[in-house]
C-alpha cells in the first residue's frame, strides 16, 4: 500500500453528475470538506446527455401550473407506485432549484416577458420544462461545475488554496465502500478508489458518503447510456448492507436512433414530439391514436384534428397521444414493428419536417439536427427520422429515506439521483430526472453535512483495505482467463433479449441462469497490459457490479407478476391493484441477490384529495379507497 494516497474528508461524493455536484455544493455550503469522485473528466458525466429540460412548475407559460399539478402528473406517470413523499418534495422544491441555477449563471431560453421559458413534454399537463434548446443537460452540468469552481475561488480567497474544502478527483473510480462497527453501531468509514490514469489507489476516510453514480443502462445492448453506467453505486450500497427497491422498472425511451447500427440506441429527445413531431408507421398512419390506454383516455386527443389544435390552443383541446408517458409510447412502437409495420431499419418514423419550418427546427432542436446530419446523413428538416426503443433509465434504485436520502440500513450513507429509487414509481416522466438530481442532490448533501456534525471519527480497517486492493489487482495475476469485453457483451445481449421491454417467466429464468454462468466466468477475468490507463482492467473492476445489479433486475422482474410502467409481462399483461401496494426489495444473499416484498406506504388523505375518486379507483384497491374516504367509481 506504499504507493497509495490517503485523504480525510467530511463527505465523499461518488459521482460527478447533476446529483453528485448538487450534493457536493450543499455539503460545502454547510461548511464541510468534500471530495467529489468522478469516473470521467470533470463536466462529462451522463447528465450532459439530457436534452429536453428540467421539470419545475414555475408557471411561466401557463399560470394554471403549480406543485400540486406536477405532483399528480408524476404519480400518474409512475402508475401510483411512486414513494409519495418524494414525489411531493420533488414537485414542491423543483422551481427553487431551477431559479438557483440561474443565480449561478445558467442561461435558459426565455419567454417574451423575460422569464425562463417552459416546454411541453410527455405526461406533463402544462408546459413545464425549463430548457436551453435541446442541450439542457449540458447547461445544467456546466452551471454546477462552474458553481463548484466559484466555491473553490472563494476558498482560495479565504484559505489561499482552491482545494481547501472541495476537491474534484477526476478520472478516479470508487471500488469499495467501508464500514466500521457492528450491528446498530455500524456506519460508513471510507472509500477505496483508484486513479484511472496511473492505476494507483486512493483511500478516503469519511464520515459520510453520498452515492450519486447514476444508472445501469450499460448492462443492456441497445442503450442511450455511456460506459459509466454500470450500476456502481447500486452494488456498493447493497454490499455495504443497503437494499435496492423496484429494480424491475427499467425505462425504455421510445425514441432512440436505429440506424446506422453503430449509433443504435442514441437518444432522440422527446422534445421532437413536444414541439410537434408525429410518429407514423410504414403505412403512414399516426398509430399512437390506437394505443391510448383506458387510464389516460380522457386526457388525450382521439382525433388528429384535435391533437393538432392542441399545439396552439392547449386550454381547449386535449394533447396528442404521441405525448403519452414513455412506457406507453415504447410499447406501442414495439408492437408496430413486431406487426410488420416498421420502418426499413426496424423502427418507426418520427417526422417533424412536415410540421415545422426548417428554421424553427434548427432553432428549437439544434443538436438533433446536428446529430442526424453527422451520424446518419439524415436532414430532419426534410425527411423523417427512424426511431425505436432504447434502454434509458432505471426507476428502481437504492432504498432511501424520502426526506434525507439516507440509505436504509447503512448509517452515514446517502444516495441521490438515478441511483436512488422511489420518486418515479414504475415509470419516469421526461424532465423529472434533471429536477430529481437537483432536489434530492441538495437534500442528500444537506443531510450528509448534518450527519457528519454529530458523528465521531470512524476507523478504517487496514486489513479490509488490503483485501480490497488484492481483489482489484487479481485480474493481472492470471496469464490466461476470461476477456472482460466478451463477458460484458454477453451480459448486454442477455439483458436485451430476456429482460427487455417485453418479459416472460421462462425468458427471465433463462436470463438468471445465464447471469449465473457469467458470474462464474467473471471470477476468472484476466487483463493484459499495465495499470496505467488500462480500460480492460477498468472494465474488469466494473463487471462484477454490473452482474450483481443485473441479477437484481432480473430477479425482481421475475417476481412481479403484473405489467406496470417500465415492466411489461407478456404472461401477466394486466396492471393489478394488489401489486401496486408492493415494493420489491433486493438484498445481498451469499454471492447472489434475494428479493422480498415490502408494503408501499399509502399517500395521506390530503394528497389523495388532489385526485378524483374515479382516477384513483383505476389504481387502488377497494380497501385503500375506503381508507382514504374515496368511493369506488
Amino acid at each position: 500500500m506504499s504507493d497509495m494516497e490517503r485523504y480525510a474528508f467530511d463527505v465523499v461524493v461518488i459521482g460527478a453528475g447533476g446529483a453528485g455536484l448538487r450534493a457536493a455544493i450543499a455539503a460545502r455550503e454547510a461548511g464541510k470538506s468534500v471530495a467529489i469522485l468522478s469516473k470521467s473528466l470533470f463536466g462529462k458525466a451522463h447528465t450532459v446527455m439530457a436534452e429536453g429540460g428540467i421539470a419545475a412548475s414555475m408557471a411561466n407559460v401557463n399560470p394554471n401550473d403549480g406543485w400540486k399539478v406536477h405532483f399528480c402528473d408524476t404519480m400518474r406517470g409512475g402508475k401510483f407506485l411512486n414513494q409519495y413523499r418524494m414525489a411531493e418534495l420533488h414537485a414542491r422544491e423543483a422551481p427553487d432549484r431551477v431559479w438557483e441555477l440561474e443565480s449561478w449563471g445558467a442561461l435558459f431560453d426565455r419567454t417574451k416577458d423575460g422569464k425562463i421559458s417552459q416546454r411541453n413534454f410527455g405526461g406533463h399537463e402544462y408546459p413545464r420544462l425549463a430548457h436551453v434548446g435541446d442541450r439542457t443537460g449540458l447547461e445544467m452540468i456546466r452551471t454546477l461545475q462552474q458553481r463548484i469552481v466559484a466555491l473553490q475561488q472563494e476558498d482560495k480567497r479565504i484559505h489561499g488554496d482552491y482545494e481547501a474544502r472541495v476537491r474534484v478527483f477526476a478520472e478516479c473510480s470508487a471500488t469499495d465502500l467501508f464500514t466500521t462497527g457492528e450491528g446498530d453501531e455500524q456506519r460508513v468509514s471510507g472509500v477505496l478508489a483508484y486513479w484511472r490514469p496511473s492505476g494507483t489507489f486512493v483511500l478516503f476516510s469519511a464520515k459520510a458518503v453520498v452515492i450519486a453514480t447514476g444508472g445501469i443502462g450499460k448492462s443492456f445492448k441497445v442503450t442511450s447510456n455511456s460506459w459509466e453506467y454500470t450500476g456502481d453505486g447500486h452494488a456498493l450500497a447493497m454490499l455495504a448492507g443497503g437494499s435496492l427497491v423496484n429494480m424491475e422498472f427499467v425505462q425504455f425511451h421510445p425514441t432512440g436512433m436505429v440506424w446506422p447500427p453503430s449509433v443504435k440506441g442514441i437518444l432522440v429527445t422527446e422534445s421532437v414530439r413536444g414541439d410537434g413531431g408525429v410518429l407514423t408507421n410504414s403505412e403512414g398512419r399516426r398509430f399512437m391514436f390506437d394505443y391510448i390506454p383506458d387510464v389516460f383516455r380522457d386526457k388525450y386527443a382521439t382525433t388528429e384534428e384535435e391533437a393538432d389544435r392542441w399545439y396552439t390552443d392547449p386550454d381547449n383541446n386535449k394533447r396528442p397521444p404521441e405525448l403519452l408517458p414513455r412506457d406507453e409510447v415504447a410499447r406501442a412502437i414495439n408492437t408496430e414493428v413486431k406487426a410488420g409495420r416498421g420502418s426499413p431499419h426496424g423502427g418507426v418514423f418520427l417526422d417533424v419536417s412536415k410540421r415545422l419550418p426548417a428554421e424553427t427546427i434548427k432553432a428549437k432542436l439544434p443538436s438533433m439536427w446536428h446529430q442526424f446530419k453527422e451520424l446518419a446523413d439524415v436532414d430532419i428538416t426534410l425527411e423523417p427520422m427512424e426511431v425505436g426503443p432504447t434502454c434509458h433509465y432505471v426507476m428502481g434504485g437504492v432504498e432511501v429515506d424520502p426526506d434525507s436520502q439516507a440509505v436504509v440500513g447503512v448509517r452515514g450513507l446517502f444516495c441521490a439521483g438515478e441511483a436512488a429509487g422511489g420518486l418515479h414509481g414504475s415509470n419516469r416522466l421526461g424532465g423529472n430526472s434533471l429536477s430529481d438530481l437537483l432536489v434530492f442532490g441538495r437534500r442528500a448533501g444537506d443531510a450528509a453535512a448534518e450527519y457528519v456534525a454529530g458523528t465521531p471519527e470512524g476507523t478504517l480497517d487496514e486489513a479490509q483495505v488490503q483485501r480490497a486492493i488484492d481483489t482489484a489487482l487479481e485480474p493481472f495475476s492470471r496469464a490466461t482467463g476470461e476477456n472482460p469485453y466478451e463477458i460484458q457483451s454477453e451480459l448486454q445481449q442477455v439483458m436485451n433479449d430476456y429482460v427487455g421491454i417485453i418479459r416472460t417467466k421462462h425468458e427471465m429464468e433463462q436470463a438468471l441462469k445465464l447471469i449465473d454462468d457469467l458470474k462464474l466466468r467473471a471470477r476468472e477475468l484476466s487483463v493484459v497490459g499495465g495499470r496505467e490507463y488500462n480500460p480492460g482492467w477498468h472494465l474488469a473492476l466494473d463487471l462484477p457490479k454490473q452482474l450483481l445489479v443485473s441479477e437484481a433486475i432480473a430477479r425482481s422482474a421475475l417476481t412481479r407478476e403484473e405489467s406496470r410502467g417500465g415492466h411489461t409481462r407478456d404472461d401477466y399483461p394486466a396492471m393489478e391493484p394488489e401489486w401496486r401496494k408492493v415494493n420489491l426489495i433486493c438484498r445481498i444473499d451469499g454471492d447472489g441477490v434475494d428479493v422480498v416484498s415490502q408494503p408501499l406506504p399509502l399517500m395521506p388523505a390530503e394528497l389523495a384529495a388532489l385526485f378524483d375518486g374515479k382516477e384513483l379507483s383505476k389504481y387502488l384497491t377497494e380497501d385503500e379507497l375506503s381508507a382514504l374516504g374515496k368511493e369506488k367509481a
Partner: protein
Amino acid sequence: MGYLAKFRLWRGDHGTGSLVDYEVEVNEGEVVLDVLHRIQATQANDLAIRWNCKAGKCGSCSAEVNGRPRLMCLTRMNTFEEDEVVTVTPLRAFPVIRDLVTDVSYNYAKAREVPAFQPPEGLQPGEYRMAQEDVQRSQEFRKCIECFLCQNTCHAIRDHEENKRAFAGPRVLMRVAELDMHPLDTLDRKRMAQDDLGLGYCNITKCCTEVCPEHIHITDNALIPLKERVADQKYDPIRWLGSKIRVRSKSE
C-alpha cells in the same frame, strides 16, 4: 458490407511510444470510435481511449485523425477511402498519459482563474428577467462541450509550450466573453483577459473556429468582440484621463 481497414494508432506513454498497425473490420455507418472499440475488444484490451457519450455531446474523445483534430465519435468511416490508412494520434498540445489519452488539466487550471458569474446585489433567485435576444450571444458560447480541440489547435499553444503559462487559450477566453455578454453579470474581467489570461496572444487566425465540433464562431463572436471591448476600455480617452487623475488605479 464490411471491409478490412488499416489503422495506425499511437501506442505508448509519457516519454516513449510508436505507431502500431492494426487490421480491423469496418461496417456500414461506423465512426472511428466504433473501430477503435473493436480493436480494443478483440486485439488490444488495454488500448487507452477516453470517451463517454459517443454522440458528440460530452467532448471526451478528442484526438487527431490523419493529423486533423477531431472528435472520434463524429468522424465517419465513409469519409475515408477503403484502402486508406487511418492514423489516430493523441492531441499534440497536451502531455500524453497513455496511447490516445492526454493530460488536459491545463485547461481546467486556466478555467479556474476566470472569476465566476456575479449577479447584481440583492437580486433574488426567481426575479431574473432577461430577453431572449440578450441571452442568445452568451448561449452560443455555452454550447461548448469542452473537447479542448480549440486549445489543442491554437498555434499559440500548439507550437509554443512556453506560452501556456501566460495564455489561457480560446476556450477560456470565450468563457470571459460569455460572462462579459451575460446581461446580468456585474464583474468587469476585460483587463484581466488582457493582462492575466493573455488575450493579446490571439492573432485571430480562426484555427479554433475551424475545428470546433459545435460550430461556435469562437473568433468572430467571442474573441474579436472581446478584443474590441478591451481596446475600447484601454484607449477610451476619458477613461485614460480618469486613470491618470486618480491616485492609484485598481490594478496598481
